[in-house]
């Protein structure tokens, strides 16, 4: 079998970007959580909030560190494997990525130092300000990245001259029609991630009867957030879907597993889409519901995949199932939010072992949901790299051979497996240390190494703690 550089590059990009995405999606939400804890501490003076903040800052430090390292790889992926795409879009993509560095990365890096190590060196208000600046930096960063991604989904404001795009209007190019929905959807996803991780970890501590007062407070706050965020995300997701229907009908057709453009389309609960046969097997459906969800009309028209030739159809099976995983987990989150509300009276939410154990498991759900969501939007755009304008094949590096792509693919998998399993293992040590370890006074013999993300965390990576 010949090694296909296109397939291998797509796998490679999917691998490095999925790996990377896990970390920022968590840090964006967590930065705001920490800023929230710091604000509560500032306003109420209750030391419990500071205790919580100190612990979650340590978690943040480790996750942020891994995210930065994996992000360096991302900034070179475009050039190494997708040089035609990079060259064609450089007039837009170059300034956007550069702006991300100067408006976000430096902000995060500088104020992170103060947040991690400045608690005793600056007034409390300034420390709070640093926490807010770090959170702001993460949002600015996602603004630029989602703007770049939205341009690939719903391009506008550009002009193609001799194989290179020129920016005709920066406002149009930065704020494409899908940008607002994508940004809101992603920001909420980040908050949801933070809420569910805080809830899950607090639940785990409560089950172990550790630092009960603080962890109950954290759990309570996280559940309130979950109650607001999870249903809101469903509404935003619906709007985002309608926007996609308008601009990228084939993506929606693949999400619904709908082959023929027709009215009164059923919602498929289960199916095995078969692209070769251009049909589904084993359908389980609810009549007319897809039409209603997408057009808010029981007899609305839903586009079908057969509107375009087979080579312009996205990989239906992947999009169809990723979408179901995302929505399924979203509904599960709503269910947990309501369950938590029902357990509110008499504080049963921190007494029910079943609920707490459920939350522990749910702390993984936002990561899976976010990755599934990105698979829907990225694979659903296929075969287009820039929707309707440039295909993956056209964007690929011309000199790239299958062997080269395979070499680096295996290379990245090995490097990530080694380095990041150490990182995740270390994160687990921080969790094990808990609020108690995070709030210990620094040991006398501790070597001072300021302004380093991981140095904020006190656990040992191996051996005794």
């Amino acid at each position, binding site marked *: 079998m010949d090694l296909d550089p296109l397939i291998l590059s797509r796998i490679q990009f999917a691998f490095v970007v999925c790996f990377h995405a896990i970390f920022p999606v968590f840090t964006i939400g967590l930065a705001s959580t920490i800023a929230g804890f710091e604000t509560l501490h500032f306003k109420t003076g209750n030391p419990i909030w500071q205790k919580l903040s100190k612990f979650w800052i340590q978690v943040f430090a480790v996750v942020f*560190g891994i995210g*930065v*390292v994996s992000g*360096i*790889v991302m*900034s*070179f992926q475009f*050039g*190494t494997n997708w*040089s035609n795409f*990079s*060259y064609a879009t*450089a*007039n837009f*993509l*170059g*300034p956007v*990525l*550069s*702006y*991300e*560095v*100067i*408006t976000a990365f*430096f*902000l995060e*890096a*500088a*104020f992170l130092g*103060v947040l991690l190590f*400045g608690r005793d060196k600056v007034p409390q208000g300034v420390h709070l300000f640093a926490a807010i600046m770090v959170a702001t930096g993460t949002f600015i960063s996602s603004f630029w990245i989602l703007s770049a991604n939205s341009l690939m989904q719903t391009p506008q404001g550009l002009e193609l001259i001799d*194989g*290179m795009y020129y*920016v005709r209007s920066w406002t149009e190019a930065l704020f494409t029609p899908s940008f607002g929905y994508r940004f809101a959807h992603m920001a909420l996803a980040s908050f949801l991630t933070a809420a569910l991780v805080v809830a899950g970890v607090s639940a785990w501590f409560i089950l172990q009867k550790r630092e009960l007062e603080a962890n109950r407070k954290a759990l309570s706050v996280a559940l309130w957030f979950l109650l607001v965020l999870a249903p809101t995300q469903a509404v935003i997701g619906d709007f985002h879907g309608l926007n996609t229907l308008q601009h990228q009908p084939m993506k929606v057709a693949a999400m619904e597993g709908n082959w023929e453009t027709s009215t009164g389309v059923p919602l498929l609960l289960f199916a095995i889409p078969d692209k070769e046969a251009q049909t589904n097997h084993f359908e389980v459906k609810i009549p007319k519901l897809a039409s209603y969800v997408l057009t808010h009309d029981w007899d609305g028209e839903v586009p079908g995949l057969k509107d375009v030739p087979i080579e312009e159809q996205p990989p239906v099976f992947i999009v169809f199932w990723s979408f179901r995983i995302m929505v399924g987990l979203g509904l599960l989150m709503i269910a947990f939010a309501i369950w938590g509300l029902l357990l509110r009276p008499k504080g049963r939410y921190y007494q029910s072992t079943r609920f707490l154990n459920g939350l522990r498991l749910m702390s993984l759900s936002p990561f899976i949901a976010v990755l599934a969501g990105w698979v829907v939007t990225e694979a659903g755009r296929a075969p287009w790299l820039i929707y309707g304008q440039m295909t993956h094949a056209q964007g690929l*590096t*011309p*000199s*790239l*051979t299958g062997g*080269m792509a395979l070499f*680096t693919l295996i*290379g990245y998998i090995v*490097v990530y497996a080694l*380095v990041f399993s*150490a990182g995740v293992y270390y994160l687990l040590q921080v969790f094990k240390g808990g609020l108690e370890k995070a709030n210990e006074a620094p040991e006398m*013999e*501790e*070597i*001072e*190494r*300021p*302004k*380093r993300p*991981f140095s904020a*965390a006190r*656990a*040992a*990576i*191996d*051996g005794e703690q």
Partner: protein
Amino acid sequence: MEQHFDLTVIWAGIIGFGLMMYVLMDGFDLGQGILFPFAPNEKARDTMMNSVAPVWDGNETWLVLGGAGLLAAFPLVYSVFLPALYIGVFLLLAGLIFRGVAFEFRFKAKTSKHLWSWSFAVGSTVASFAQGAVVGAYIQGFETQGFVYSGGPLDWLTPFTVVTGLGLVAGYALLGSTWLIMKTEGELQDWAYKITPKLLAGLLTVFTIVCIYTPFVDETVKMRWFNNISIIWVLPALALFCAYVVLRAVKKRQDGMPFVASMGIFLFSYLGLLASKWPYIVPPNFTIWDAASSHNSQLFLLLGFLFVIPIVLAYTSWTYWVFRGKVKAGGYH
């Protein structure tokens, strides 16, 4: 047309300056990794790592900015260099990752400490070698068709680029050892004094090979250096003078001068290289104007730089001020 000319030159200046800053700043901390396996003892290694721990990662943010800035201002460089150096770029990134996490984990580790020491040493050396090979590949030039790289996956790996790779390893090690002379004392400093002349000899050997080889790759470069004896000969002369200063300072056991003069060697060699190749940024076919992005995009980003960078510098220096006087290699006493 006139406007385009100006902005492109400004951007060439910004990128050129940024690259030089990166080389000087990341050079001495990569050098610690290169010297790591040869250090006299484990305590020396702890000190070496501590001496650069607070600064190294800021430097790598500049590397990301360099990558993004290159894409913004000179997309052709980005889209030719990265495919041409595909395997080398991977080695560079893998090296930077391994050494980067070693900074974090080595101090936390108890039983696995030696593994992270190796991770730091090998990662730093591989990353330095890859950077040196990139310089060599730039001197050699790239095979292109239209605006696209058309050579093979290992064209960049030639005897010449291996020499430049090893040369940069020696050069960064020199920056590293002279940094140690400045920043440490006792046994470690003695050791740094001892190895510095050897590293300098290694660097000068490569320097000579590059000086002889470079004019013969490219007719324009040859003409520039040999047809009219011009002012540019002052650059290699100054580089050699700096080498002499390093040697003399080491003999007199001065602390600061070896590091300063080593940076001088880098600075003048770099300027000499630029003087050879100017205005070719993707040799042998493309100048900075061929490689430039659109005027509109260069302007859009330049305005941002003018507004944002002063703010960045302001809050960055504020954070340095917050932590003033606290950056130490040792612990609380």
